């Protein structure tokens, strides 16, 4: 038991230190002793969750997040053939992200997209200044489970409500969850416009997406 726990810890540490070769080596050892789901959940994902926390605390930076995600992907790839049929390459969910029309702020939303992608979601980042209809059209095209809407100005915040209203008009509101974020967005704003959740930062966005979609 201690041996397998040690292996899982080693995998998580290798992800945190962005050591792709080490991840491949330790996952190779672990797959002889543990089921692939456990290796992913308690080793690879656990490491990735800690990477997210360290990013928020200013101890790890965006390139590290990407390298850790790359290492994790390599580990998951190694386990694919052992995963039950139908679960291979299965993403946690499909998310369309973007900043509302009239708002050119990009960086925070990009970090959220990166963190969601690193955590196993399939993310379509539409960029910034995105027309309301494009959110909905893209969601239809990729069969999205969630739309993430960012706004950094009080004057563009209304764009989040417009996306939700258009989803309702198109009869998609029941199928697609909506997450809102950005400096002027708050939980009460999310409640007011009928969004499913509000996230304060990138880590919270990942946690809330998992909460709603898994």
């Amino acid at each position, binding site marked *: 038991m201690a041996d397998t726990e040690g292996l899982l810890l080693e995998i998580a540490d290798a992800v945190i230190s962005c050591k792709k070769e080490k991840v491949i080596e330790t996952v190779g050892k672990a797959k002889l002793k543990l089921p692939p789901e456990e290796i992913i959940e308690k080793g690879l994902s656990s490491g990735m969750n800690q990477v997210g926390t360290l990013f928020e605390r*200013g101890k790890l*930076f965006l*390139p590290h997040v990407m390298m850790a995600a790359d290492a994790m992907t390599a580990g998951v790839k190694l386990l694919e053939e052992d995963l039950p049929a139908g679960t291979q390459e299965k993403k946690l969910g499909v998310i369309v992200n973007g900043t509302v029309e009239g708002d050119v702020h*990009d*960086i925070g939303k990009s970090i959220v997209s*990166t963190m969601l992608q690193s955590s196993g979601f399939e993310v379509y980042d539409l960029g910034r200044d995105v027309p309301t209809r494009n959110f909905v059209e893209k969601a239809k095209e990729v069969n999205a489970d969630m739309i993430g809407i960012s706004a950094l100005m009080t004057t563009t915040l209304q764009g989040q409500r417009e996306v939700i209203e258009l989803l309702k008009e198109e009869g998609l509101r029941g199928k697609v969850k909506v997450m809102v974020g950005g400096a002027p967005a708050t*939980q009460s704003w999310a409640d007011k416009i009928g969004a499913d959740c509000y996230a304060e930062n990138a880590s919270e966005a990942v946690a809330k997406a998992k909460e709603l979609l898994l």
Partner: protein
Amino acid sequence: MATEYALRMGDGKRVFLTKEKIMAEIEAGTANAADLGEIPTLSANEMDKLAEILTMPGKAVSVEQGMEIPVTHDIGTIRLDGDQGNSGVGIPSSRLVGCMMHERAFGADTMELGHIDYSFKPVKPVVSNECQAMEVCQQNMIIPLFYGAMPNMGLYYTPDGPFENPGDLMKLFKIDKAKESMEHAAEHLTRDTVWVMQKLFASGADGVNFDTTGAAGDGDMYGTLYAIQALRKEFPDMYIEAGMAGEMVLGMHGELEYDEVRLAGLWPHEQAPLIAKAGANVFGPVCNTNTSKTSAWNLARAVTFIKAAVEASPIPCHVNMGMGVGGIPMLETPPIDAVTRASKAMVEIAGVDGI
């Protein structure tokens, strides 16, 4: 039933808390800052003082006599004449009128001139206009008048600028290319800022305000620090103020350094010495408000961070106070009860030199 005091949530909502609950929130807020910044928590006396400020009966409170501090303004006159997306109130007025109103009606101790785009890069094609406006304002005003703008390094990335967007490159795992893009953008940011300020200084500006430094992460701060360094070398007597965009420098690049200190992940008390080293006269630390937490939690956290910055800073600290920063709720027109309590706490507990 215990007495309850009217406080705010970080999103501005009213909340009523007992003294015990307020103390618990203060303890949790200061502990959060201490944990993240690896700095001391507030002392028991300071926490009591903060609770006293939060529970004062008046709608607005003020600092004790003799503890008044200078007030500096940013975003130029946009708060008056801006009417779309810049927190302005849409009063038709020229920038000269706006600056003079700040000086003669609002009691501003210093003021700044700013362009509607409020970033250095878009000032380049209209710099002559800015120089003329600066001269006219200087001829009509007495208080120090700076030129203010945001470094805003995001404007150097596609689709606004020549360099590929590092966010897009990162998502494609092109990490080295993303870093190169940030390095190029930072060089251009330094060059443009210095060029714009050379012109404005020649037109009589008393100083420069770098507003929201680090908004695009560590590259943004890197470019700004080198701009400050270059300006200080060229203009030894110029007044340079550098305010931050957020409490922590986002690590978009992760390896950029100034004075052998890695910029990514720096908290206010770690930013202050570098800003001073580059040659600034005043540092504007920031602490972000969490909209899901109470004003007691947010203010205790903000005061803890800013107090550490003040202690570590070799230059005066003018803390950023406003919508969503400095323990003030995230509201476009923040409520006066929260603004005045946060300001009093920053002066009397954190010991800031200005706001």
